[in-house]
């Protein structure tokens, strides 16, 4: 009897917490399809706001995804080998490098953006395009490196590497055939983090953006500041619609390859 009571209590608590988090999201999404938010849902349901958002901001959405995937590509190319090197050479230098990589998480994004601007702001074309991605890479790299290192620690990658070496595999083949495939869960977790963080990153991006290079969150801030609340909400809704299938697809991609191998 008591255990049932405890269970009921726990269930109620969980539901309340979940509702606390979910209700605002649902309300926000509803606002995006409501004719007049101040009169409530009774004023009618419309897709007009979403169409308007798409016309105004489609470019920012596409750009956000471009930036996110470019960031992902770079963090993969840099982060996975870096994680391997840091795991295998566990000296005090490695610890230091690990700390330095992690540092951008503790430094406010605005400060990073300012430093990047001070250093590279003078290069016009770079300022308008790649500087963005550089900022995102600096910000997201620790998540990739940490996630991959966690997997390396769990699977004793050093011995796997040694056993592949004993079978005649060169360092590159070892990395390609054994290390990278077995780091897949970490690479996947890291990739999800990198993509979502890059898509949602605001303060660094806001500082770095030019009128021609707005991303989604910057556009969102813009719409909150200057448009009707319904437009900003519709914008959020579009964001949800785009990112959730993306995350699911990435999860499935990771799982597929594992079972096929």
């Amino acid at each position, binding site marked *: 009897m008591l255990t049932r009571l405890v269970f009921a209590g726990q269930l109620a608590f969980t539901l309340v917490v979940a509702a606390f988090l979910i209700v605002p999201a649902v309300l926000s999404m509803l606002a995006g399809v409501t004719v007049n938010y101040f009169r409530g849902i009774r004023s009618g349901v419309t897709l007009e706001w979403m169409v308007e958002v798409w016309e105004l901001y489609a470019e920012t959405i596409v750009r956000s995804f471009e930036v996110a995937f470019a960031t992902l590509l770079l963090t993969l190319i840099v982060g996975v080998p870096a994680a391997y090197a840091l795991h295998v050479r566990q000296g005090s230098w490695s610890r230091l490098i690990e700390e330095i990589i992690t540092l951008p998480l503790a430094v406010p994004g605005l400060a990073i953006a300012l430093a990047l601007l001070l250093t590279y702001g003078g290069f016009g074309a770079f300022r308008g395009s790649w500087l963005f991605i550089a900022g995102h890479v600096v910000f997201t790299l620790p998540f990739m490196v940490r996630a991959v290192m966690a997997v390396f620690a769990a*699977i*004793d990658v050093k*011995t*796997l590497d*040694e*056993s*592949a*070496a*004993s*079978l*005649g*595999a*060169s360092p590159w*083949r070892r990395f390609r*055939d*054994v290390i990278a*495939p*077995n780091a*897949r869960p970490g690479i996947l977790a890291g990739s999800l983090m990198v993509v979502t963080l890059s898509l949602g990153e605001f303060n660094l991006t806001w500082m770095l953006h030019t009128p021609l290079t707005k991303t989604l969150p910057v556009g969102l801030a813009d719409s909150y500041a200057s448009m009707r609340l319904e437009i900003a909400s519709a914008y959020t809704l579009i964001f949800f619609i785009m990112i959730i299938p993306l995350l699911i697809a990435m999860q499935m991609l990771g799982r597929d390859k*594992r079972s096929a*191998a």
Partner: protein
Amino acid sequence: MSAGVSVGLEACAKTFADDTRALEPVTLEIARGETLVFLGPSGCGKTTTLRIIAGLEAPDPGGRVRFDGEDVTSIPIERRNVGMVFQSYALFPNMNVAENIGYGLKIRGASRAQRQARVEELVALTGIEGLERRQVDQLSGGQRQRVALARAVAPRPRVLLLDEPLTALDASLRERLRVELNRLLRSLGITTVYVTHDQAEAMALGDRIVVMRAGAIAQIGSPREIYFEPASRFVAEFVGAANIVEGTACDGAIVLPGARIPIGTTGKVTLMLRPETIAVVPPDAAELSGRIENVTFVGDRQRIVIADAASRPLLIDAPNTIAAAPGERVGLRIDPTRIRVLPEERDEQGGKS
């Protein structure tokens, strides 16, 4: 019949980056087709020696590793053509059993058909038929061990290196696999270096055993030599059970509380008596007697601890049929031909001399 190469180590020492000396300079020769076992407690340098032969560690400057006379010291492991089995097996989780076994051949550019034929051969040899398509995490410990062995042997390496390959298994399986491994190594005839801390494994598998202690070789010899003629007290106690009796011999005999044991020499001596060389006899007919302190029945025999016979309690292995009860006084007969006088210790036990 024999495959593989002879392996020579010349003054191979190893000092790690933090200045700890893992290995004193070791020089030894492993014959073509021989199985050499490195035996010793953890931290004795046996795995370091194996890793130097493999190419996973470089010896300190001045050390040389030779395969059939050829200096391979600076050749990295991937070009030494060695086969290695790790204690954790280190099977690739992203490949199935057949892919694991065939990986070394794939690296060497063997065709799909060649690989398949060799994998089939090894699967049969190691008795894991039917598991080829299994994922590694679906295998039992014994099966993993066999896959690891098959994978190491598949590319026909010049030397097979095994680092505690049976340690992760439970006792009964370990014993069975030891027999299988022995058969396999004999049939391959490959030069094999085997590292273990288990003296029964060393005895069963080694043509020769290298007993190591604190980074140095304590003794090299056949299993019989190591067991019957240990070079030091450490070897005597590490390999099998041993009774160590210290005393001073006068007139060619050593005097114990219970009796005089005749030995050839005079002066301060250390004797080793194996438990199975002492027999329990009726007290009145015996030259040595003592009191039974403890009896442990282990199935095929019973181990009896005798007090009051020597300066320290004596261990005796007696047949499982005789009656023995704690407190009882018994006579002991020692086979005089099997008493081993140990050489003088050179301050190894941290003693005062």
